[in-house]
């Protein structure tokens, strides 16, 4: 099995969002980048699969600032190979949907038979990357996956999470694409010496063999929603404020005590 893991760097926004001049994007001048949390889980699941059944793991990223360091860290974590993919200069970061053709072409060239990526990212809360990769490659896919079990080598069985505590086991023939929500095990700690060793590795840069999908959706405006005015604060003894809040909620017809 050859697993390709797609990693993305995303803006580390914390709580503060500054809208850039022009009102169509965030101000990226001082924004730090970090590895998308769900992609981190996808990498962990890939390495976990490698450990239990044997697999080659290749981590890829669209090239840009900070990418080499992230891929070196992936090597230190246990990935066998890493590639950064150069795409033509574009304005700003490439969205998950726009990178789909590039990533799909890389999967075909590297000969991957399983593609793992994070189920979602902050710029793609919906989680388009895995399903659209499945469509472009013509492979089956599952989103919101929380564990991957290899079967006999030609199929895998995944646990797919739905809301409300419902999950389903889905069997997919390989090759397949998965959007990973949580890895089967916690993300491993990488020792300083392993990291230092990986930092010496140069990450091969390959040219994209497909064009970025051009966004034909135009951003009209980006704004930060109005902050609420803050809470009405209730002070006093525990029993007094408990009574007070119950009265307030009862007045608004919000309570139906069972």
């Amino acid at each position, binding site marked *: 099995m050859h697993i390709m893991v797609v990693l993305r760097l995303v803006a580390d926004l914390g709580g503060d969002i500054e809208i850039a001049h022009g009102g169509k994007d965030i101000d990226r001048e001082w924004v730090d980048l970090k590895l998308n949390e769900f992609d981190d889980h996808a990498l962990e699941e890939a390495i976990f699969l490698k450990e239990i059944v044997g697999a080659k793991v290749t981590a890829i990223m669209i090239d840009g600032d900070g990418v080499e360091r992230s891929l070196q860290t992936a090597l230190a974590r246990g990935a066998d190979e890493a590639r950064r993919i150069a795409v033509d200069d574009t304005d700003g970061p490439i969205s998950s949907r726009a990178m789909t053709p590039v990533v799909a072409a890389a999967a075909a060239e590297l000969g991957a038979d399983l593609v793992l990526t994070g189920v979602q990212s902050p710029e793609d809360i919906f989680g*388009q990357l895995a399903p659209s990769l499945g469509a472009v490659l013509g492979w089956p896919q599952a989103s919101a996956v929380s564990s991957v079990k290899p079967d006999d080598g030609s199929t895998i069985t995944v646990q797919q999470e739905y809301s409300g*505590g419902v999950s389903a*086991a*889905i069997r997919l023939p390989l090759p397949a694409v998965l959007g990973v929500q949580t890895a089967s095990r916690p993300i491993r700690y990488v020792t300083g010496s392993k990291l230092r060793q990986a930092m010496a590795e140069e990450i091969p840069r390959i040219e994209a063999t497909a064009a970025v999908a051009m966004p034909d959706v135009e951003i009209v405006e980006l*704004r930060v929603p109005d902050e609420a005015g803050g809470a009405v604060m*209730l002070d006093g003894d525990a029993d007094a404020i408990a009574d007070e809040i119950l009265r307030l909620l009862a007045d608004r017809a919000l309570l139906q005590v069972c």
Partner: protein
Amino acid sequence: MTTLLIAEHDNGSLKEPTARALTAALAIGGDVQVLVAGKDCGAAAAEAARLAGVTKVLHAESDALAHQLAEPLAALIVALAAPYDAIVAAATSTGKNTMPRVAALLDVMQVSDVTGVVAADTFERPIYAGNAIETVQSPEAKRVLTVRSSAFKAAEAGGAAAVEPVDAAAAVAAGSAFVGAEIARLERPELTSARIVVSGGRAFQSAENFRKYLEPLADKLGAAIGASRAAVDAGYAPNDYQVGQTGKVVAPDLYIACGISGAIQHLAGMKDAKVIVAINKDPDAPIFQVADYGLVGDVFTLLPEFEKAL
């Protein structure tokens, strides 16, 4: 202009996000037809036909559609797509699995998580984990939209649309196969559709305390229990309790946040609740910025008083 709304259902009945997504579909303007694709899903199709505003229901039956897996469902939608100007689905687990596949097969850009319809081609949607709102214009001849159902009211019953069987041959059972469902036994209302949610954070200090203090309160209120990421990561609450996680956007009438400081992901998952009550020791906790009522104090003293007073 004609819109195709993809119904979410369990074959026997429609799921609530469908009626909410219908409201968004109607706001776009023009005719709205509903696709109910499944196995033995006649009852769900009949229910869709009774929703006010629906002009026609397309009823597709196939073994391959029994579990609404992405590959057969997306293939069917693409086969039916030609006459429609917009294809709309709720941003649910099924919608998330299927619609990006549809968009990529049709080679259009999906507009995801729509929370507002400004015009037939202009929509509002949250981005950056819900901390900003983007207004986008989609000039596509065919638009693929997914709708954040908590942002729209459910359309009411009162319609009488015709149900028309459609050819489901495009839905081929290739690709993934459904092996089995695991349903956690729900003793309480389901988190994403509950009217009241009682949610706990790191302040509980242990799984025992989390249960001991929150369960009696939730039981008395008929509420669902939620948790912050910190509580889930610390092992106080199971993963599927987490509010703000994938798909876990809640918009109940009442949200009671107990010992939750209000990390940005959590706030994004619950700030649409009608009334928010926050209990926290720290008067500067960010949760108080979005709360309607704030109680500064210890959950271990306040919750028993609260429960006693009920």
